[in-house]
């Protein structure tokens, strides 16, 4: 029980973790969780689309747009991961405050992009599933539901924008001469 009170030691735990750990986890989250969201959305749409297309084969080509919107979410994650990894520079002062800040900003950027894309992929996937079913019954509904999907896919873009802004301030200290 006593060790909980030594809060200085606990903050030291974070201070002694290298910023490279946080940056690497951020980059991993950015692509890993985005791809999770995209895959989740694609299977939700795809299983419904296949079943509905048996009866109404005309819906297949148009409803692939839903799958493409989900896929775009994974591409956002990959792009941001590539941008983040170019910001990761080697430095001789890993525990300088500026490099700690760089590590945290890459970490937060990864979390932002990853989780925004996760929910965006889910959203587009569920709407795509309902879109396939509605289109099979009444083809005038497709374009209207597509508008809802476009708004849904904007959520992923918000995440990418904020993530890139966060990571742009990741500067590492130059080596002392």
């Amino acid at each position, binding site marked *: 029980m006593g060790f909980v009170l030594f809060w200085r030691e606990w903050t030291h735990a974070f201070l002694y973790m290298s910023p490279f750990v946080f940056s690497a986890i951020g980059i991993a989250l950015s692509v890993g969780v985005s791809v999770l969201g995209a895959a*989740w959305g694609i*299977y*939700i749409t795809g*299983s*419904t*689309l*296949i*079943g*509905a297309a*048996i*009866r*109404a084969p005309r819906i297949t080509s148009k409803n692939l747009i839903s799958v493409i919107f989900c896929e775009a979410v994974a591409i956002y994650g990959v792009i941001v991961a590539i941008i983040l990894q170019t910001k990761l520079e080697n430095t001789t002062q890993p525990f300088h405050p500026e490099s700690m800040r760089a590590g945290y900003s890459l970490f937060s950027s990864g979390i932002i992009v990853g989780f925004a894309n996760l929910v965006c992929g*889910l959203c587009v996937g*569920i709407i795509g*599933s*309902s879109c*396939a*079913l509605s289109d*099979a*019954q009444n083809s005038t509904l497709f374009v209207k539901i597509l508008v809802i999907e476009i708004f849904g896919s904007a959520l992923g873009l918000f995440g990418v924008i904020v993530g890139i802004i966060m990571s742009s301030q990741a500067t590492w200290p130059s080596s002392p001469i």
Partner: protein
Amino acid sequence: MYGFEALNFNVDGGYLEAIVRGYKAGLLTTADYNNLCQCEHLDDIKMHLGASDYAPYLANEPSPLHTSAIVEKCTQKLVDDYNHMLSQATEPLSTFLEYITYGHMIDNVVLIVTGSLHERDVHELLEKCHPLGMFDSIATLAVAQNMRELYRLVLVDTPLAPYFSECITSEDLDEMNIEVMRNTLYKAYLEDFYRFCKKLGGATSTIMCDLLAFEADRRAINITINSIGTELTRDDRKKLYSNFGILYPYGHDELSVCEDFDQVRGAMEKYPAYQGIFAKLSFGESQMLDKAFYEEEVKRLTLTFEQQFHYAVFFAYMRLGEQEVRNLMWISECVAQQQKSRIHDGVVMIF
């Protein structure tokens, strides 16, 4: 949790849900029924149905057509749809689909037992059984003399075995006991189905429990009306009511003491849904009650399709398919007997 089934329903059930919604799109609409009601002969009916999903089933039927042939082929289409879905379903959807057929199994069992009581030929009875409720040892039912034998010889291997605990007696089978047996089995089946749906949770349990509650209440009202004037005592009548539904428990108390139709109507005044049904009938009339209940049931079943990611659409499709076969049977009979004026008395429009 209700609301999050969208996240993982499609893993196992997404494909089949889309398939069943495709089947539902093939159900006949009001415009189709209006066309069918204008037909003069059964061959016209066959021609109109040739544009619907029944086309491959009726195409090879030779003229002259009988109403029984139309009904048999249309039921066959429903059975084929069901088997297609059951063969591709995983747990728990496969158990859910099997539960839907147990009601037909109970009806088949009672049909064969009643028929053999009246010394009918077993093969004739087997042809009249509903195909969804067939099981392997069904023909041996004709041999049983009392309920204990019925259970021991045949039913212990079927899915109906757990429903028998309440009605095994050593009495011989006669008309009254068979009806009581049917209703006791059906009560146990509905309660079992209700518990199963509750266990599934989510949107399935909410919607299915509503539908099953309506079914239980409808059966309670029908049991009451059918047992007015018979030897069934009040306590026996009360034992046949299911222990869930809007009418449980106070409505059941009131129903069990009703002695005529208007008392039943009075007992139902407190329940807005059922009061609405009885309000459609004028005083003293009980023939249209069945149709009023069917209309209410169809209305509730079509509402299940408004929501996605649950199993109640499968149940609703099977029930709506049966209603459609009933409609086609009524229309064919009216056309065959040239009684077109009564044709709209028995048709319940679905869409």
